[in-house]
């Protein structure tokens, strides 16, 4: 007996859900690491030390000029080959997405730090704050508000980019969908559910980001 589309979807649900969860986990870890790393990365760029500027610039250019996909391949296939370092495809995915996310959130953070009036630094320094204290008590709390809307946009891009990790064999949601399609030949329903999944995840975020941005100006 032929399964109806709905029945097929119900039957494949457990496998799809596993894929969803995998996608969500990769995105979650990458977003956390990107945020922490990115804020630090942005701060380092605004301290004003030449060697730090050169170093961060170099790191930034690595991710600007080399596609994420190539990074994924490099880390997944290249590291074992050249350095005998073996990482699971999941770890590779989180690693690459985070390293890339750090540059993206880093740019957001740098812009936010630089948008704070110069006098705030002077005032903070003139009461004897160290550089770390200056960032901790004065600059970061003021930059944070300005960082939130553009950071949410970066998060949606990270979520969408998780779909690339299918190419290094992560069984995230796209891979799970493909497996089901291979088994059952039912493409429309499965691709449709992927479509809905990404949309439901990213659309509210992009609305939120726009709302917050509006409220701030």
């Amino acid at each position, binding site marked *: 007996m032929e399964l109806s589309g709905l029945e097929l979807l119900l039957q494949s649900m457990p496998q799809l859900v596993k894929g969803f969860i995998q996608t969500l986990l990769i995105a979650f870890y990458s977003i956390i690491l990107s945020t922490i790393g990115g804020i630090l990365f942005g701060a380092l760029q605004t301290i004003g030390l030449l060697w730090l500027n050169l170093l961060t610039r170099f790191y930034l250019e690595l991710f600007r000029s080399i596609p994420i996909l190539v990074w994924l391949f490099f880390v997944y296939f290249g590291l074992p080959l050249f350095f005998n370092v073996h990482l699971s495809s999941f770890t590779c995915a989180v690693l690459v997405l985070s390293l890339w996310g750090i540059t993206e959130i880093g740019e957001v953070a740098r812009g936010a730090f630089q948008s704070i009036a110069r006098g705030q630094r002077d005032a903070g320094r*003139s*009461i004897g704050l160290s550089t770390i204290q200056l960032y901790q008590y004065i600059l970061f709390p003021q930059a944070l508000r300005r960082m939130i809307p553009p950071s949410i946009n970066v998060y949606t891009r990270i979520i969408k980019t998780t779909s690339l990790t299918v190419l290094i064999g992560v069984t995230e949601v796209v891979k799970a969908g493909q497996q089901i399609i291979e088994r059952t030949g039912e493409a429309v329903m499965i691709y449709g559910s992927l479509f809905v999944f990404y949309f439901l995840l990213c659309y509210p975020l992009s609305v939120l980001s726009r709302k917050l941005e509006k409220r701030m100006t």
Partner: protein
Amino acid sequence: MTHTAASKPILKLMNVGKSFHKQVVLKNIHLTVQRGEVTVILGPSGCGKSTLLRCLNGLELIDEGSIRFNELELTPKGRQWQAVRERIGMVFQSYHLFPHMKVIDNILLGPLKVQKRSKAEALAQAEELLERIGLLDKRDSYPRELSGGQQQRIAIVRALCMNPEVMLFDEVTAALDPEMVKEVLEVMLQLAREGMTMIIVTHEMGFARAVADRIVFMDKGSIIEQGNPKSFFSEPQTDRAKRFLQQFYEIETWKGRDVI
């Protein structure tokens, strides 16, 4: 203010020079400030007054000469400026209060995080200082809720609560509406009476004359004249200072008021 001539200077600048890119902004600055003395720096716009003040607490680093603060040589690179800044307070033209903190937290940040003083003791001092400038009821307000004059007086208290030995004031009334200038100047006059060592950059000539023990006149990055306020205002030695003062007298007379 009178002081014994024999006392050791609190600040001594010798041959200080400073350039931004190739532009010379300060050159050959010799200046000695005694404890308790009020020094007012006058000079045309762009002559380096702000830069000179900023060099005293390391917001800018000098390229030449030396600055001695008590027994400390401030010149060497890598000097721990944090420790020096605790002892040299600074107030800016645009107040620069921290907008995300309440008034009281603005004032307590330095005492608690830099000086690691006890909360109770620092709080008591902060409240006493607020009381003295009549703003104790604003302790839980945010800076944006205050007028410019109130913000500037809070900024003065923020610096004072560190118990500095020297206070630097960089045109602290220049951004204020005229009716608020007085309330800020009064706080500064009171401080001067209490014996605080102060270095003040201002364009308020009447105030300069009233508060100063000594006037330092700068032009194009150099000190070209120093003296007590009485002789400086009545018989300036250099043509440049004469012309500078003349401008102020002219404006005063435009307003139809008496010359200071």
